[in-house]
């Protein structure tokens, strides 16, 4: 791709990443969440793929699949946190600790420090989707040309 496209891509990719992170982070307060934010981040990977070609990114394939696994493991592990009561029990909500602020009643702009395990799960899902969708795009971009065993 031409130098114009490459320069614009270099400017715009950090913005896409920041927006994706914002969507994941506010998943428990506003529309959005892990999947949507992850998809936004994966679109940055797709942009890089179009601009720089699949060859430059091929080396990151293993890293992406490792991150995807870690995201999935984190999600199940967070669900296991509640096994003292029941699986998926939101043990952090309202506990006063991390993400444990009680939600004030009535209309309010929303507070980031609420939601218990939900924001953490959003991060896990976001990591999983960003890495998973990114590697899907990358592998389809490689046209199966690499060794995909």
């Amino acid at each position, binding site marked *: 791709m031409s130098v114009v496209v490459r320069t614009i891509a270099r400017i715009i990719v950090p913005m896409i990443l920041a927006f994706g992170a914002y969507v994941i982070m506010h998943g428990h307060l506003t529309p959005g969440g892990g999947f949507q934010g992850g998809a936004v981040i994966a679109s940055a990977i797709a942009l890089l793929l179009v601009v720089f070609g699949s060859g430059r990114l091929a080396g990151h394939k293993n890293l992406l*699949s*490792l991150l995807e*696994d*870690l995201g*999935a*493991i984190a999600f*199940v*592990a967070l*669900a*296991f946190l*509640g*096994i003292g*009561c*029941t*699986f*998926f*029990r*939101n043990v952090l909500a309202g506990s006063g600790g991390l993400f444990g602020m009680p939600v004030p009643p009535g209309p309010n702009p929303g507070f980031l420090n609420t939601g218990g395990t939900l924001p953490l799960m959003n991060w896990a899902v976001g990591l999983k989707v960003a890495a998973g969708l990114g590697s899907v795009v990358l592998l389809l971009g490689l046209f*199966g040309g690499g060794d*995909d*065993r």
Partner: protein
Amino acid sequence: MTIGVHAPILAIAVPLLGAFALPVFAKVHRSLRDLWAIAVGAFTCAMVITVAVQTFTSGIQVYTLGAAAPTDTIASGGFPIRIMLVVDGMSAFMGLISALVGLASLVYAFHFLKEEQGKTLAMTLFFLLWAGMLGMEYTGDMFNFFVFLEVTSIAACSLVGYRTWESRPAEAAFKTMALYTVGGLLVLLAIGILYGEYGALNIAYLSSKITGSQLDKIALGLLLGGLLMKVGAVPAHMWAPDAYGEAPAQAAIMLVANTQASLYGLWRVLFTLFGGALSAPAVGWLVTSLGVLTLLVAVLMAVVQTDLGRLIAYGAVSQIGYMLLGVGVGLTVLPSRPDWGLVAMKGGIFHMVNDAATIGLLFLAAGVVKRAVGTRDLRALGGLGHDLKWTSGFFFLGALALAGIPPLNGFASKFLIYESSFRLSPILTAIAVLGSILLLAVFARAFQGAFLGPRLREAKPASPSMLVAMGVLAAVILAMGLVPGFFVEHMVTPAAEALWRGRDLYLAAVLGG
């Protein structure tokens, strides 16, 4: 004590965690991955057995996710809104089948899969499929059922087509995926209709509300269509021989178990979800006639096959016909509930576990043949019995059991089906018996062609883990054939009763009182 309470969710969550953690462990070291796979497999089987024992001894198990206690099914507001698992006799029975097949598949895979041919990937997908199947069987929520259905679809099709260095698996996988997805979307549409009508997704709550209105009938039709597509009953059976035939042996038997999980979904929909609204025998006759059609068409197609894998695949499809026939007869007479209706249900349900064991054994034996000589073409095979003594014995046992020769398990369940379907219509029994005879002929020819005769070429013998896996299934076949009364009384009867009369208990366990 506490682990017993959490057993239903652990049986789903642990293989799921196992699937996700497996590639990470594989990156560290292979032996760590194998150790992890064995640990997860053993733990899952232990949990499934725990669930089954608890269910058979103390009744329906309920587990509400995210609640303060597992039995808090009703959220504040008097409405069951949380996702929950409900395990009754039928679910527990299906869980045991999945655990048996999963165990055999896992043990078999250890020596069957080669490192350079994606062993880690295949094992990951295996655990994902296992978790999805157990989820389908234990869930008490329609939407969750759909999600697990799709998890099994995706994992199963990946298992069929992950060998990208050959062209045929990808073709089979694409075909299967297209049909599975359309089937899944029909199910989702039906769930949407039911949600729009009653505003709930919980099976027990929906069941208590469904009245049999026009929309309910549309939803039932969509659910039947979608699930029959996934089951591989005759108008939509095109995917089954391709997928079974092209999948590696350890994946093919998981596909068989997955088909049965979808069949379980069909029973759950017909007997529990629509159990209160279904009064006309039309649906029962539909299922029965589809069953007869399936077994006849599949057996006739099996006659002309020359590939051992596809031949067994058509055998597997024909067995689905027997299950549809048995339970369909029970469904037809459900409003009046005569004794022989329950016998038919027992036959159909007993046949599910028999089919899992026998078809599983045959597929595993065919896998050994493929590995030993590199082909499964019956025209090129011959004399394998000289080198593969155990395998030919196992294949012979499986073929006899499949055809329903006494004293093996296939006879026990088919006899129950014959006996009761005769009361509904002798034509059904005649076709079913004809199917069995043809099946015997087909498998006798396959056995003779592949294993008997002069030795044509050197065959690579089966590895210990493969023999152990086949031995487990053979032991199950022999045990169920020699003492069928024990299995029928302690496992099949509770499962059949759960569908036959258990709807009120199911509703009471979730909705209370």
